[in-house]
């Protein structure tokens, strides 16, 4: 097969300096998660932790790609995660996002996606929900590279 398959599924290895496993006994970086559940199908927009919150809508893979996911991106925010490629029944997602804007009256939405094309769907969903919403909220779109670098970071038109 030639190398023009789906970039979202293409096999790659990134060379890194050797790291020693610590055994998981010590937590040096505290979790910044302050709610449960987190999956977009499972969360309710009327949950108290969404009211007036700064919300992070993260594509599943971003938490693994970013070395500082908790400290830089999740800290101070409420979370919903989703995969625009593999999740089923995604028609529910747009309504939930619209409800976050209108009912939870969230302060901001940060959409964190991977650079692979399939991930754009999550940003598209958020943009459509914002357009449909009667309430405008700043939406920040952040694209994460496969090795955890930030490729794009911009605010959408409110």
């Amino acid at each position, binding site marked *: 097969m030639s190398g023009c398959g789906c970039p979202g599924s293409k096999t790659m290895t990134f060379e890194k300096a050797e790291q020693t496993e610590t055994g998981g006994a010590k937590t040096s970086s505290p979790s910044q998660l302050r709610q449960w559940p987190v999956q977009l199908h499972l969360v309710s927009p009327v949950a108290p932790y969404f009211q007036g919150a700064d919300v992070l809508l993260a594509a599943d893979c971003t938490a693994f790609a970013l070395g500082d996911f908790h400290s*830089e991106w999740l800290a101070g925010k409420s979370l919903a995660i989703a995969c625009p490629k593999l999740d089923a029944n995604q028609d529910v997602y747009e309504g939930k996002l619209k409800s976050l804007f209108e009912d939870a009256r969230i*302060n901001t939405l940060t959409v964190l996606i991977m650079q692979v094309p399939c991930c754009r769907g999550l940003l598209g969903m958020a943009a459509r929900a914002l357009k449909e919403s009667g309430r405008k909220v700043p939406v920040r779109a952040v694209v994460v590279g496969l090795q955890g670098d*930030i490729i794009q970071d911009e*605010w959408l038109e409110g």
Partner: protein
Amino acid sequence: MNEYLRTPIREIISRFPQVGSLLEAHGIGCVPCSLGTCPLGDIVDIHGLAPEVELALMTAIGAIVAPGEAVVLSARPAASSPKKGFSPPMKTLVDEHRLILRLIALVPAVTASLDVHAEDDRQLVVAIVAFIRNYADRFHHAKEEDLLFARFDRESDILQVMYEDHANGRACVKAAVDALERRDPAGVTDNLIAYTEILKQHIRKEDEILYPWMDRKLSTRQVGELFSAFRKIDSAFSEEAGRYEAFVRSLEDKFASNDAEVA
């Protein structure tokens, strides 16, 4: 070298004029600043230069002001990500600048044909002053001073320069109104033109330097709070804002067609 980082830029440029040229070569236009009270270190910081560019610039400045001394830049947290464009609340302010600039671009044409003894001309100046006081000052500058600047150190030199510009602008407008009452055409013209010069420079400083710096410093939480506070003001002022936009359009139509007739 460290003492120069806290020295007002005007003092440095007057002692070492080459520093002004170096700053200008890096797009830092402090030489014509009317106040020049900002310290050198803050000025370089606020422009967000790439670390290697900043080091090269400070090394070159150091060679002029303190030859032989090593330049050590204070460690700053690296920008977490390459942010592009203005955040939504900041973009609102930049869009408001566009309307203010459209109005002040018309002032030379208005004052060129001004007859302070003609009632229509006096009413036109009154209407321009109303735009400046209500739209530019009460609506736009109030958002800046009460909401945006309030999230930063109001005593900082950079913000003091901005407050000073606002105050100087208000003084020019008051002097123009006083001159109109005295039927003094030169007083009206000179003060309105002085106002436009202050505002043009002021808006350039905000759009190109202050706002991008503030956007880098604002947290996501603060961006959302400002956006929501601005929208409340926008919605209360929306009818008036629409009238002022129509006023600028009508002036553009009138004075653009006058220009066309002259041509």
